[in-house]
């Protein structure tokens, strides 16, 4: 995975082709929305800002639900954001096959919206944790991981308070059996996640949720690595392939 590590200006805005418009939703309290936009740009795509109150998702080809504390994460992480107008459209389009990536808070929103099974609970050590996390790609066939290889290990930042993935044993078994565990923590499990799960996908492989932040590992200057960029390049390629 090699990436230009330069200034992160507007690497490829649009690129001319109609494809590669990736929406990034801003909820009140979203924090990593600009970072997701930058990652999309660095990957060669065109980031499109989406607003939580709008049903209209501006004809984007894919959507990222970014990290942050939507609505302060006050009730449960993602619980309030799930009911925003934009999510109605995102859920509808996701069911029709549009690639959707939920990062951290976005993952929590996807679980609350029942686009992904399970839930994310308080870290077992009860602290917010920010660290560079080693991960293993378990499924390189989703819309967001095609540029990786199965078994590849990457390091990207992890930062959250409620990142422990839980689901019933039955659901966990099914996720494993169907190859829907996309990412696993390597080394110390940072939050008590069941079966070291860091990210999962839906049955169709177009919706992926993960707790770590690939959008913060896209420039050597500001991230621990540039190994997160692959999520965004993968999506752009999958869009081209699907067209």
């Amino acid at each position, binding site marked *: 995975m090699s990436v230009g590590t330069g200034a992160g200006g507007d690497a490829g805005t649009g690129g001319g082709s109609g494809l590669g418009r990736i929406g990034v939703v801003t909820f009140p309290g979203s*924090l990593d929305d600009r*970072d997701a936009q930058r990652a999309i740009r660095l990957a060669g795509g065109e980031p499109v800002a989406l607003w939580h109150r709008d049903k209209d998702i501006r004809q984007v080809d894919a959507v990222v639900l970014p990290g942050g504390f939507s609505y302060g994460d006050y009730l449960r992480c993602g619980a309030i954001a799930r009911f925003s107008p934009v999510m109605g459209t995102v859920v509808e389009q996701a069911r029709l096959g549009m690639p959707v990536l939920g990062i951290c808070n976005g993952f929590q929103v996807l679980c609350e919206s029942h686009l992904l099974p399970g839930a994310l609970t308080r870290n077992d050590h009860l*602290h*917010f944790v*920010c660290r560079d996390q080693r991960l293993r790609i378990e499924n390189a066939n989703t819309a967001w991981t095609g540029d990786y290889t199965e078994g590849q290990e990457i390091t990207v930042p992890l930062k959250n308070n409620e990142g422990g993935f839980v689901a019933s044993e039955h659901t966990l078994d099914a996720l494993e059996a169907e190859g829907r565990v996309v990412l696993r923590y390597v080394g110390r499990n940072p939050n008590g996640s069941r079966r070291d799960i860091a990210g999962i996908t839906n049955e169709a492989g177009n919706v992926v949720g993960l707790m770590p932040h690939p959008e913060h590992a896209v*420039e050597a200057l500001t991230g621990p690595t540039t190994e997160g960029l692959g999520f965004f390049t993968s999506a752009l390629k999958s869009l081209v392939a699907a067209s």
Partner: protein
Amino acid sequence: MSERSERTVMHSLDTVKHAEQTPDTQLPWAELGLKEDEYGRIREILGRRPTGAELAMYSVMWSEHCSYKSSKVHLKQFSEKAPQSDAMLVGIGEQAGVVDVGQGYAVTFKVESHNHPSYVEPHQGAATGIGGIVRDIIAMGARPVAVMDPLRFGAADHPDTRRVLPGVVSGIGGYGNCLGLPNIGGEVVFDSCYQGNPLVNALCVGVMRHEDIHLAKASGTGNKVVLYGARTGGDGIGGASILASETFDDTKPSKRPAVQVGDPFQEKLLIECTLEAFQERLVVGIQDLGAAGLSCATSELASNGSGGMRVELDSVPLRDSSLSPEEILMSESQERMCAVVEPEKVERFLAICEKWDVTATVIGEVTDGDRLGIFWHGEQIVDVPPRTVAHDGPVLQRPYARPDWQDALQADDPARLPRPADGDELRAAVLALVGSPNQADKSWITDQYDRYVLGDTVLAQPEDGGMIRIDAETGLGVALATDGNGRYAKLDPYAGAQLALAESYRNVATTGARPLAVTDCLNFGSPEDPAAMWQFAEACRGLADACRTLGTPVTGGNVSLYNQTGDVAVHPTPVVGVLGVIDDVARRTPMAFADEGHLVYLLGDTREELGGSAWSQVAHGHLGGRPPAVDLERERLLGEVLVAASRDGMADAAHDLSDGGLIQALTESCLKGGRGARIVVPDGMDPFVFLFSESQGRALVAIPRSEEVRFNDMCGARGLPATRIGVVDGDAVEVQGQFTIPLAELRRTHERTIPELLA
């Protein structure tokens, strides 16, 4: 609740008219913290007795916390002695100073204390500390881009530290993380002097374009005053005067004022909607609501502006409908701001607030004339010249005197302390040092802070300074560090303040950034104690003198007095933050020794200086003697060399030397890079002094062999001593002829202390 019941209840509304008619009515001025002569002055200013609401305003604005009445006469020096600096766009006096960093960008930064509230309720106290300083920065027109948190706690193994520290850290993290501001540095110091009085300081830095600087003033007759953000509740009523001005006495829980709860989500919305309003040029003047709430915001806005102001207090949206007008004026409810907006732009301003789900209300307007009038149900309850509330508070010339114990303390030289005699004892002393709570790894704390959010963090803890990129095209960035050493300041407050500046300056330069400007938080004991007042006066004098020498003006800061438990004050603790600029962040110098074969150079001179040192504390629990000598010209020279080495790509890593001396810095750089080092003690140098002395003006640098000649030539030409002391190599730290410590052992010792104490 007792606060409320103790308050004198006005049975009927105490209007201005009523006050004129009832000159003899007794008001509870003493309970509100005013002195008799101060009350007399208020009567004189008004030509009558104040109303209850006026009294509330004066009392809170004339408190130590808001008026700086004890410190003003000393703080003056920061302006009087300020070095000429073209970089200063806005100086002391505004919410925060503004510094020109080039390319049309301006940066504003400030450090503030939230010490007392953080002892009462660590989580909320610290959280609202972050909230307050962030609002100061937004109120200058800037987008906040990072926070830092210099912290001091009681003894690491004291049971109450287990209550206070985790709460403070979760409060800072909970609030800052939720705002989406990276935490890029700070300090954690343990010392039993802070047992009943932790120091929780918070720094925020923001960035704007020059043309976006906003000031807190209400001008333009007819312009509207808009209050927006959280609804007003009974939070911290009287908090500013009672909580911050008087010694907190934990034996009387009934005296505990209401604690404020922070709502970082609300603040995040406040940031976004304020910045959007700035962008559309909707704001004439703006002020955050902090201590003293609306009393402060309205009087300062009006006082700084050209006219007067009229406020309809009934329009203030309330969380608690039973609040009296006096309480509304004093409430310190968090997450509120006040903007002055031209009438034709109000609609758009309110629409932006609505977009962000922020409650916003027009509560008044700018008037001609020069009075601040506040109305309640149509009746006037305040009629004051705003300047007298906001700026003409009392100024005290508190007596101060060098304490009689100072000589004995300085005479108690650490030279008498037993020292490690051979390699084995040195080895043990090194492990004891790097595993001691003050010198140990702080990741247990800093891992609770998001350092990545916003995507522009180039350096963060444990680096010497935090560094933020502010322009992605050009690579322009700023670096910040905060430092303070209460032990040095206790031994000599004049030198201690200068050493705090020197260290912070050095930390910034080590990253490759050019130091530009200073903010400070002066944490001291009771100003009513002549000894504490002397410490304060000396520290101010020292800092002002040093800033002049180094050419780095103080742009703003904060004073926190009454930091004591009973009669025992904390160490005088001036915390100094330095801001530097770097033209291209890609040139930054990190601290890690990561490359096998690089040469380790020690810059500067090492003398036997152990007074106030970490070694004397860890090995002997000793504090005495004199702190290390201050040599500001040397600091400047060292800084120039470090910046040049970064710019010209000569140094791959650098780490400044501070508490713990050379061996501490070497340990940190080796552990960060995952590489060992072989070190030779220079000829004629005592190994113990070499490793543990805290002589100032020094740094370690790692130089690729290919750069050695060029680097040496540069140091030689500039006259900075540079000694090659070893090489980055292997997986142990070896001091030849003395001892070897495998990295793994060093790491274990360095990293386990804090988790074991707190987990």
